[in-house]
């Protein structure tokens, strides 16, 4: 079982979700984050006061999958989120020890899907 974290551009979210759906990866958790990366933000100006604002809006996906789904998940995210421009983001894969479905109490691989 793997715990996949992906940071992507906000406006790529829809296409990533679509592609994941197509690969039968339905379950996803999404949240707002701000990211500092190589991408340079647009300096905002408030009454002539410049805000360097190195943090840009990003979207974070968390997807827990069984081993066999790691590849399709990573592919779907890559395909959906890639524009080729700086700021496209990253995918991180962590090892998951245990998983439990609250509704049924099931644990392990069956609880993931």
């Amino acid at each position, binding site marked *: 079982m793997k715990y996949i974290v992906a940071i992507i*551009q906000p*406006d790529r979210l*829809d296409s990533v979700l679509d592609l994941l759906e197509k690969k039968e990866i339905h379950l996803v958790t999404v949240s*707002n984050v*701000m990211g500092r990366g190589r991408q340079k933000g*647009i*300096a*905002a*100006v*408030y009454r002539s006061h410049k805000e360097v604002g190195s*943090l840009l*809006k990003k979207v974070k996906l968390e997807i827990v999958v069984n081993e066999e789904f790691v590849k399709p998940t990573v592919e779907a995210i890559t395909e959906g989120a890639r524009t080729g*421009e700086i700021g496209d983001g990253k995918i991180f894969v962590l090892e998951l020890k245990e998983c439990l479905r609250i509704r049924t109490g099931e644990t392990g691989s069956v609880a993931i899907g």
Partner: protein
Amino acid sequence: MMKKSIVGRAGLLCGLFGIMMMLAGNGYGQEAVAGAVAAAAAPASAVSAGDTAWVLMSSALVLLMTPGLAFFYGGLVRKKNVLSILMQCFMVICLITLQWVLFGYSLAFGPDVKGWIGNLSWACLKGVGAEPFTNYAATIPHSVFMIFQAMFAVITPALILGAFAERMKFSAFCAFILLWATLVYDPVAHWVWGLGGFLSRFDAAGNAVPGALDFAGGTVVHINAGIAALAAALVMGKRVGPTSPPHSLPFAVLGAGLLWFGWFGFNAGSALAANGLAANAFIATHVATAMAGLTWAICDWLWHKKATTLGMITGAVAGLVAITPACGFVSPMSAIWIGAGASIICFIAVTFIKAVFKYDDTLDAFGVHGVGGIWGALATGIWAEKSVGGFDGLLHGNPGQFLIQLKAVLVTMVYSFVVSFVLLKLVDKIIGLRVTEHEERVGLDLTQHKEAGYTTID
């Protein structure tokens, strides 16, 4: 280099504009004198403090409608574009106010030139002072009439921006709106409301002639802006990416509340006096709006199983739009039907027609203001009754008025569409209408104004 060329293009636009204005000035020179004389000859008339208080207050109310519209529209776009809407609305207030006092008012309401346009003899408010100009409003200072009308000139172009929200360059917006106000709004206002305008109820000397009924701007304001919005949606094309739900419906509701409030000034203020006619306009406005809000809620309930908030406020605005030309000519009971019709027709436009033709009228500026305005203008010709505003319509045995309404609607639609289309293409050539796809994705707030509407981390 890049910058230079933008400046260059802007210069070109200004130049064009200047030339047009000069031509206008020259061409109309002769009539200007005649007009001024006519104005001077108008009999002096007593200013009524009560009427003046009412029209001044109404002017303030109509001004408030533009921020109201800003929130109505601003709540419906994505978070990353909210400021672009608010900014465009405020820019319209600034630009058009200046345009109006410098020459717009004179073009629209100044002494008539062959039924098409006012001349420039009232430019820079020359002669527009504390004395009433009796043929427009006998009991309030001429300047009060002028500033009341200014607020109409301001909000009309602001209505259009709903059609191209989330994708227009700010510089192009400024250029377009200024051209549009001058070449579309001012002439159409003159035709319908100016003394001697070819669709107007008065000849240049102020004598009554058969003409279109447009109490507070169904044709001049809503059809005009709504059709321009359609042209804009077509010229601009669709937004990139999937649509998004409104980022803050409460803001849209706030905007609707301010619009409803301000619209009393718009409609009842158009009586230009605090009297029974103003009361009729006030009541008809309120009743039609209530009926339209309710009707849209029912349509939603029938079609989508639930009454939606956005539906109800959209209906209310459709009702406000439709009753605008009618409110001083129809009874409050007729207003019920006009309001109901407005919501049904606009609901159809927004739900089905838009889906079929697939133009991206982002915030339904055409679907609500264009369609609602057409319905309202025609409905005025149907339900008008002499006992209210001096004219009978179809249902009171005067089909002729209906035909006049139809003519005014068609003329305005054609003119507005064609000229708006041409102006948009022109601005596109010179400045470029759309932001880049990347800018659109990042959002107009950051890319056009270097600001974010809200903080995320705090």
